């Protein structure tokens, strides 16, 4: 539970800039919910903005995910204790919305759209092909933390169905083999680099981003 001290420490958003777009989680940066953890301050601020009322839950969850990249049990317990919300309710909200993650995301993400248009264009077979090749179930992250395979309900690119989003870049008319090749290339590119640079920011496809 965040102590009252952190409430009076004022809005501290300066550390936000230092947070990489895809935050990494290692044992040393698992959330600590007190004033000693700067990343908890935006969460505290989000709760305070809504007067610590239960209605501010989703906003607070967004803040947790922005700070840590995912929402872990300890964060949910801290939110529950501060906002007087039952744990099961928080867990229900987190799992209801696709945007929230209970586990750290991989350094790369591959989101397969399962919206209506994509589904008609064979998104289920596409997902199967990727899932088989990468040996991961949808929603999982590879053991080495390299790749997360996710699904979405429409990414708004129905004209390019079936669509796959790899590291924020939409791939239209996606084919299983091409996507798998691209994912393999991502992994390959990462191997070439030293580990230190590979973990910094969203790598790959960055040059193609518009």
């Amino acid at each position, binding site marked *: 539970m965040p102590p009252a001290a952190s409430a009076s420490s004022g809005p501290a958003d300066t550390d936000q800039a230092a947070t990489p777009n895809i935050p990494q989680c290692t044992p040393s940066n698992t959330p600590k919910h007190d004033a000693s953890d700067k990343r908890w301050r935006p969460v505290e601020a989000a709760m305070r903005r809504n007067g610590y009322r239960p209605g501010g839950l989703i906003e607070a969850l967004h803040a947790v995910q922005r700070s840590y990249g995912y929402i872990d049990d300890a964060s*949910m*317990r801290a939110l529950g204790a501060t906002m007087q919300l*039952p*744990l*099961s*309710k928080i*867990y*229900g909200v987190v*799992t*209801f919305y696709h945007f929230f993650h209970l586990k750290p995301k991989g350094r790369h993400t591959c989101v397969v759209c399962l919206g209506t248009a994509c589904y008609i264009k064979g998104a289920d077979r596409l997902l199967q092909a990727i899932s088989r090749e990468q040996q991961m179930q949808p929603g999982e992250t590879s053991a080495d933390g390299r790749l997360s395979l996710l699904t979405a309900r429409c990414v708004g690119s129905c004209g390019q169905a079936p669509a796959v989003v790899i590291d924020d870049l939409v791939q239209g008319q996606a084919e299983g083999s091409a996507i798998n090749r691209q994912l393999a290339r991502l992994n390959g590119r990462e191997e070439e680099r030293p580990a230190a640079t590979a973990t910094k920011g969203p790598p790959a496809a960055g040059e193609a981003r518009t």
Partner: protein
Amino acid sequence: MSGGRVITLQIDGRDCGAREEQTILEVARENGIYIPTLCHLNGLHPVGGCRICLVEIAGAPRPLPACVTHPVEGMQVTTDNPELRRQRRLILELMLAEGNHICAVCVVNGHCELQELALQLGVDHLEVPALYPSREVDASHPRFGLDRNRCVLCTRCVRVCGEIEGAHTWDVMGRGLQAMVISDLNQPWGEAESCTGCGKCVQVCPTGALFEKGKSAGEMVKRHLHLPLLTAMRREEEAGE
């Protein structure tokens, strides 16, 4: 209870008086008109989740759930006709197809609201393919068990735990086919700190999803191996006399 404007409406052609804060279901029950329900339970807030209590209202484009619809002056409600029965039957079939409802091996066989409804609505087979999911059973609580295969997500347990006991141990996680009842942070029930072990959820569960331990068919083990010993001892006793 009193207060609120008095409204007259017709339910199945019968004139009924109602207060505006009542629901159609309450008015019907007061007047002895039967509407089948599943997720509704007196004393808990209605959620209109199961749609078994659908009724037709003259002028409304589609059937509405009686448990959360309030009466309006001059409203004409139909609670039973072949079309409503067909719809209720389909809803029930979808519920049955989504889980594993095998009455023969269920702890509440004969005392089950779902089974009772199926009998009443004449569901003797499924017209939709059954999914036969394999869902987890939680037997971690010392006194109770949760078999999600038999859960229809009526949320009675969620509501009784939150509204009456005030613990709110239960809630529903996920969505669609993946939705399921969880305790605290999706922990085993026996490890959920907020649970008081009051057992209200078990009492309100309409199916065998929440049950008291020791009552399942597999636990009904008869012990008759001690009989030969008893007879032998009795014979010894008699011989001694």
